[in-house]
C-alpha cells in the first residue's frame, strides 16, 4: 500500500501517526479508490473490443469495489476519524521547478465525503443501469471504458488537494463528457453537441486557469489548504479577482448563465450519461469548487452576491424554458440547470450547508428521474417526444412509481428529500437578508412543481398518444434497469428525513460545520436557534404552499392517473394574449440564446475570422513570400553574369585591376 513519501504532510496525519495507526491506514485507501477506475478504463480500452459482450463485467466490478472502499472512507470521515479538519496524503512530487512545487496528493474531509457518497453511489447505479440500457449497442465496451474514465476523473477532482490537480481533473471530466455525449459519433447532432459542450466548458476554464495563476502569483502556493491560510493577508481587489475567476470555471462546468447553452444539447448522449454526468456528478463540480474555495469567497461578499445573482437568474431562466419543451430529456436538462441555479444561489448567500445538502438530494432524485426517463424511452422504442406518450402508468409500473417519487421529491413536497434541501436554501436566503433571492426562489419552486407535473401528466397519465405500431410492444425494462430506479427512490424519499432533521441542528449541518466554520466567522454570522412557530415555520409554509399551487396547476392542466389533460385549456391559455404568446415563443426558443450565440460567434465572429484570414494570407504571408520572390529574382538577375566564357571572366578581372590601380594612383597623388 502507498505510504506517504513526502514528509510533513499534514499536522493531523503526523499527530495521528504518533497517536494511533487508524487514520494512517484508511487514508491509504484513497489512491486505491482512484486507481481502480483508472485501471478499469485502461483495461477496457485495450481489450474491450475483443472481449465483446461481457466487456461490462470488469468496469462494473471495479466501480462496485470503489463504492465499497469509498463508503469505508466516508464513514470514517464523517465520524471524525480523519480529525475535524480532514486528512491528506501526498504521493510524490509532480513538478519541482525551483519555487514552483506541486505534489500529487489527496485530501479527505467531510465535504469530500458528501461528494464521494453522491459520485460513487450514482456511478455504481448508472454502471448497473447501462448494462441493460446499452445491451444492444455494439460499442458498449467503449461506453464502459469511458464511464470508468469519467469515474476516475470525477473522483480525482473531488479528492485532489491542490488546484493544479483539480484543474487537470476538471479538464478530464470535460473530456469524458465530450466522449460520452458524442458516443454515437455517427449522428451529426451528437457530434456537434459534444463539440459545443467542450468548447463552452473551455470558455469557463480560461477564467479558472487565470484564477489559479492569480492564486499562485499572490499566495505562492497551489496547495489548497496552504492557499486558504494565506488568503487573508491579500488585498481585497486580488481576492475579488481570484473569486470571480474561479467562479468563471464553475459557471462553465455547471452550466450557469451565460454558459448554460451546452447542457440541453448534451442530451444527445445516451440516457445513463445524462443521468451520471449532467445531473448528478460533473455539473456538481462547479458547486463543489465554490464550496471548497469558500475561504476565498467569504472574504469578498461582492463576489458572493454575483454568485447568488447568476445562480438564481439561471434558476428562473431554465425553469421558464422547461415549461414548453416537448422532449422529455430536455425538460429534465432544464430542470437540472434550474436546480444548479438554486445551489449557486445558496452558495452566494452563504448557506453552504444547504447548497451541499441540495447537491446530494438533487443528485439522487435527478439521477432517478433521468434513469427513469431512459426506461420510458426504452419502453416506447426510442421515442423522446412527450406528446407521443401517455397512459403509460399501467404498462411500466416500476418506472412510473419511481419517477413519481422523483417528481414529488423535486417539487419540494414534504417529507421527501427535495423539500428539506430546497426549504433550507430558501429559508437561509430570507434570513440572511437576500429577500430577492428568496422571492425568485419561491417562484421557481412553484414553476418546478408545475413543469414536473406537466412531464408526469404527458408521459404517464391520461389517454395514450403513443404511436399505434409501438403500443403493443411496450414493456417494463429488465431488472438491471429497474433495480437502480428502486435503489435511487429510497434516498429520494428518506435522505431529507435522515440528513435534514432535526431542523436547525440537522445531521448534515453537524457534518459540514467544521468545513465552513471559518467562512461563517469571516462573514460574521452567528447561529440562531430554529423557530418553528416563528419565521422558520412561516417560510416552510410559504414554500410548501407555492409548491402545492404549482402541483395542483400541473395536475389540473395535464392529467393525473386516469384523468386526461386539458389540452384545449392549455392552448387557450397560451394563445390568450400577446404577452402569453410571446412568452410561449420565447420559452420554446430557449429565449433565443442559441440564436444570439450563433449570431455573435458564427456570423459576426465568422466575418471577423475571415477578415483576419485575409490579412494573414495577404499581408503576413505576402510579406514572407515577397522576401522569397525578391531573393529568387535577384538571383536570377545576377546569374547572367556567369556566362561560362573564360574571356568574360578575364575581362572582369582586367577591369577590376584597372579600377583598383587607377583609384590607387588618384588617391596617392592627393
Amino acid at each position: 500500500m502507498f505510504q506517504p513519501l513526502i514528509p510533513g504532510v499534514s499536522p493531523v496525519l503526523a499527530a495521528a501517526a504518533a497517536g494511533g495507526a487508524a487514520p494512517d491506514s484508511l487514508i491509504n485507501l484513497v489512491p486505491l479508490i482512484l486507481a481502480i477506475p483508472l485501471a478499469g478504463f485502461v483495461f477496457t480500452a485495450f481489450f474491450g473490443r475483443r472481449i465483446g459482450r461481457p466487456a461490462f463485467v470488469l468496469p462494473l466490478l471495479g466501480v462496485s469495489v470503489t463504492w465499497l472502499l469509498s463508503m469505508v472512507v466516508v464513514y470514517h470521515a464523517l465520524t471524525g476519524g480523519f480529525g475535524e479538519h480532514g486528512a491528506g496524503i501526498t504521493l510524490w512530487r509532480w513538478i519541482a521547478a525551483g519555487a514552483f512545487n506541486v505534489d500529487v496528493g489527496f485530501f479527505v474531509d467531510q465535504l469530500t465525503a458528501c461528494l464521494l457518497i453522491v459520485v460513487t453511489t450514482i456511478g455504481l447505479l448508472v454502471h448497473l443501469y447501462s448494462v441493460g440500457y446499452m445491451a444492444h449497442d455494439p460499442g458498449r465496451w467503449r461506453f464502459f471504458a469511458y464511464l470508468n474514465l469519467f469515474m476516475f476523473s470525477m473522483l480525482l477532482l473531488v479528492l485532489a488537494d491542490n488546484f493544479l490537480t483539480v484543474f487537470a481533473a476538471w479538464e478530464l471530466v470535460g473530456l469524458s463528457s465530450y466522449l460520452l455525449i458524442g458516443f454515437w459519433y455517427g449522428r451529426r447532432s451528437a457530434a456537434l453537441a459534444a463539440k459545443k459542450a467542450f468548447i463552452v466548458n473551455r470558455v469557463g476554464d480560461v477564467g479558472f486557469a487565470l484564477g489559479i495563476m492569480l492564486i499562485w502569483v499572490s499566495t505562492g502556493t497551489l496547495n489548497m489548504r496552504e492557499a486558504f491560510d494565506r488568503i487573508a493577508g491579500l488585498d481585497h481587489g486580488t481576492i475579488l479577482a481570484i473569486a470571480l475567476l474561479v467562479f468563471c470555471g464553475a459557471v462553465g462546468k455547471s452550466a450557469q448563465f451565460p454558459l448554460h447553452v451546452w447542457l440541453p444539447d448534451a442530451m444527445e448522449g445516451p440516457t445513463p450519461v445524462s443521468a451520471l454526468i449532467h445531473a448528478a456528478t460533473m455539473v456538481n463540480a462547479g458547486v463543489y469548487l465554490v464550496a471548497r474555495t469558500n475561504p476565498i469567497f467569504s472574504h469578498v461578499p461582492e463576489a458572493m452576491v454575483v454568485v447568488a445573482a447568476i445562480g438564481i437568474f439561471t434558476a428562473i431562466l431554465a425553469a421558464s424554458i422547461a415549461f414548453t419543451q416537448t422532449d422529455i430529456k430536455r425538460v429534465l436538462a432544464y430542470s437540472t440547470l434550474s436546480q444548479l441555479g438554486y445551489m449557486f444561489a445558496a452558495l452566494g448567500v452563504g448557506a453552504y450547508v444547504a447548497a451541499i445538502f441540495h447537491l446530494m438530494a438533487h443528485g439522487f432524485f435527478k439521477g432517478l428521474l433521468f434513469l427513469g426517463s431512459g426506461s420510458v424511452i426504452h419502453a416506447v422504442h426510442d421515442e423522446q417526444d412527450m406528446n407521443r406518450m401517455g397512459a403509460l402508468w399501467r404498462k411500466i409500473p416500476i418506472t412510473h412509481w419511481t419517477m413519481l417519487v422523483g417528481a414529488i421529491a423535486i417539487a419540494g413536497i414534504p417529507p421527501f428529500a427535495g423539500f428539506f434541501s430546497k426549504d433550507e436554501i430558501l429559508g437561509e436566503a430570507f434570513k440572511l437578508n437576500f429577500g430577492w433571492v428568496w422571492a425568485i426562489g419561491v417562484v421557481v419552486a412553484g414553476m418546478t412543481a408545475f413543469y414536473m407535473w406537466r412531464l408526469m401528466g404527458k408521459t404517464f397519465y391520461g389517454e395514450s398518444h403513443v404511436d399505434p405500431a409501438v403500443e403493443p410492444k411496450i414493456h417494463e425494462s429488465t431488472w438491471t434497469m429497474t433495480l437502480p430506479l428502486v435503489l435511487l427512490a429510497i434516498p429520494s424519499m428518506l435522505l431529507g428525513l435522515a440528513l435534514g432533521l432535526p431542523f436547525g441542528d440537522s445531521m448534515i449541518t453537524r457534518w459540514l460545520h467544521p468545513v465552513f466554520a471559518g467562512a461563517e466567522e469571516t462573514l460574521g454570522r452567528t447561529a440562531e436557534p430554529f423557530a418553528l412557530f416563528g419565521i422558520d415555520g412561516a417560510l416552510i409554509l410559504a414554500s410548501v404552499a407555492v409548491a402545492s399551487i404549482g402541483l395542483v396547476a400541473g395536475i389540473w392542466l395535464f392529467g393525473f392517473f386516469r384523468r386526461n389533460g386539458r389540452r384545449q385549456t392549455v392552448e387557450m391559455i397560451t394563445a390568450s394574449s400577446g404577452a402569453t404568446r410571446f412568452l410561449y415563443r420565447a420559452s420554446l426558443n430557449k429565449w433565443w440564446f442559441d440564436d444570439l450565440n450563433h449570431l455573435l460567434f458564427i456570423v459576426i465572429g465568422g466575418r471577423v475570422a475571415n477578415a483576419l484570414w485575409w490579412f494573414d494570407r495577404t499581408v503576413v504571408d505576402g510579406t514572407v513570400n515577397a522576401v522569397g520572390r525578391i531573393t529568387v529574382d535577384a538571383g536570377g538577375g545576377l546569374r547572367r553574369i556567369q556566362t561560362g566564357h573564360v574571356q568574360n571572366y578575364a575581362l572582369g578581372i582586367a577591369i577590376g585591376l584597372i579600377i583598383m590601380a587607377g583609384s590607387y594612383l588618384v588617391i596617392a597623388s592627393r
Partner: protein
Amino acid sequence: MSQSLDAYLVVSGILFAIGSFGFLARRNAISMLMSIELMLNAVNLTIVAFGAFIPALNGTASVIALMVMAVAAAEATVGLAIVMAIYRNRRTPLVDEYDAMRQ
C-alpha cells in the same frame, strides 16, 4: 641601349596591353595561349629592365626572369595539352563554343 628606364617600361606596357587585348578578344584557344606568352614576356622585360637600372639589385633580378620563363614554359605546355584534349572532344578551337556546362 636607351639611357632611361621609362622607355623599357613603356615598351613592356604596350606589349602587355597587346597581350591582354589578344587574350580577351581572340576566339581561338591557341591565339589566347600566344597572347598569354606575350604578357609573360612583357613582364620579363619589366623585371630585367628594373634589374639593369637599379644599382642596389646588383643585377640579380635576372633570376626572377629565369623563373618566370620556366613557369611560362611549363604552363604553356599544360595549356596546350588541355586545348588539344578539348579539341579532340569538341572538334573546335573556338572558346565561345565550349558551353556544355552552361545553362
